């Protein structure tokens, strides 16, 4: 209860300080508009920004589904076959670690402007964290479980379906939570770098046009959407883990 109050007070205080700073002219309103200027801008940009947001979230959804499906299958395959894992893991870690922005110009050259590079780049961001998490989880599955299942005559299919998959569910869920932010990040970066539509493009054009109130409003909109998505996934995660017991 006290925690909630403190959180609300913090937000109000931050907005208040920001309003005062902007009103007193300590910062140039051309660059940092007061909250009271951002709120009407939110209404003004309404329809266009929502269309951009829908476009971005659509691409993110496609990239996300691809990342999860590919990431989990690749993680299970590479994680469960020892030779494959030992040969591939340095490459996987390297691809996971390098800043993907460096290949973005090349992706745009090869795939052009539009939806395809955004989805591809989103998958590039979402795939590796999911794969790395799942790969580690498969590797760390209790050996005794596998040995017992084998000695009781489980087929390979049963081993994957009845032992491996249930054991890695928490990591898959963790990867899914991590992946969605990465996918959204990837899509937004492409839209900013070479977009003709979508929220990244909207943000970029407001910045280029020095439309600070609109820019702040649009930024707030994307942030709220992404926080809502992550909280929803957290909630789902909670429910599922309670159901698992």
């Amino acid at each position, binding site marked *: 209860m006290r925690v909630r109050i403190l*959180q609300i007070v913090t937000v109000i205080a931050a907005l208040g300080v920001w309003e005062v700073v902007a009103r007193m002219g300590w910062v140039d309103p051309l660059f940092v508009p007061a909250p009271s200027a951002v709120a009407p801008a939110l209404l003004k940009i309404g329809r266009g920004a929502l269309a951009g947001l829908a476009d971005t979230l659509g691409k993110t959804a496609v990239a996300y589904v691809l990342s999860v499906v590919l990431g989990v299958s690749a993680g299970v395959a590479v994680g469960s076959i020892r030779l494959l894992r030992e040969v591939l893991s340095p490459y996987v870690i390297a691809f996971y670690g390098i*800043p993907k922005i*460096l290949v973005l110009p090349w992706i745009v*050259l090869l795939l052009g402007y539009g939806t395809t590079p955004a989805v591809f780049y989103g998958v590039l961001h979402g795939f590796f964290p999911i794969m790395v998490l799942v790969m580690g989880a498969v590797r760390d599955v209790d050996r005794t479980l596998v040995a017992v299942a084998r000695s009781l005559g489980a087929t390979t299919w049963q081993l994957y379906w009845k032992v491996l998959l249930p054991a890695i569910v928490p990591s898959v869920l963790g990867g899914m939570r991590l992946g969605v932010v990465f996918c959204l*990040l990837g899509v937004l970066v492409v839209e900013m770098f070479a977009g003709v539509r979508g929220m990244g493009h909207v943000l970029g054009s407001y910045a280029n046009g020095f439309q*600070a109130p609109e*820019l702040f409003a649009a930024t707030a909109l*994307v*942030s709220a959407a992404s926080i809502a998505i992550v909280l929803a996934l957290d909630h789902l995660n909670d429910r599922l883990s309670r159901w698992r017991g």
Partner: protein
Amino acid sequence: MTVVGLRLGLLALFLAIWEIAGRKVNPLLGVPPSAVLPSLRDLLLLRSYPDLPASLWLTIREIGTAYALAVAAGLGCGFVLGMHRLVGRAWGPMLAALYAVPAVVWYPSLMLFFGLDAASKIAFGFLLGFFPIALAVLAGIRQVNPQLVVVARAYGAGTATVFRRVMLPAMLFTLVGGLRTGLALCVIGVVVGEILGSKAGMGALINHAYGLLRTGDYVALVLVTLVLVVGSDVLASLLERRARRWTE
């Protein structure tokens, strides 16, 4: 041994396929590895981009400044949140929620406010590096066994001694991990900032090569930048290992 052989074989296969496919598609867009080598030589001999050292140095300075700020703010903020229970319980989740926003949405605002020069890249690198450091301090403080602190205090240890002898060893593992992640993200932030819009630095050179379709030069510049990225992480991992040895 076979594993290493297979790894190298895979790399060779990958390069061979790239070489063939790159020539077949369009050498300009496919950039086969054989086209990269001459560009890399020209780049390193400062023929294609004479301002390479200056750009590299600017990017390194941006990363250094951003990281110094991120470490200072991250440690400060993390300790304040970790030491005050109520504040930590209220602000911790808010910090975590902000961390869930893809940071790139802040970049246009930062660019508008700080301009196209180094300041906006430093600000963005700072923003990316700050969160993992602050969250690691917060998580590290939670790992400290409060009973140990009470016992140390009961034996008359002052705040500084408690911190150095009890808290720091207990949280160092997490803290150093956060510092390393923070550096990696600072580097990414600065590079992303430079590529999304800048007038100088490695990102500006990369954009220049890309914009003029000098794809060989582009790949060579990316390789040089990668050396910087990997080098910073290797440095961080050495420091991490040292710090961990100190706790044992």
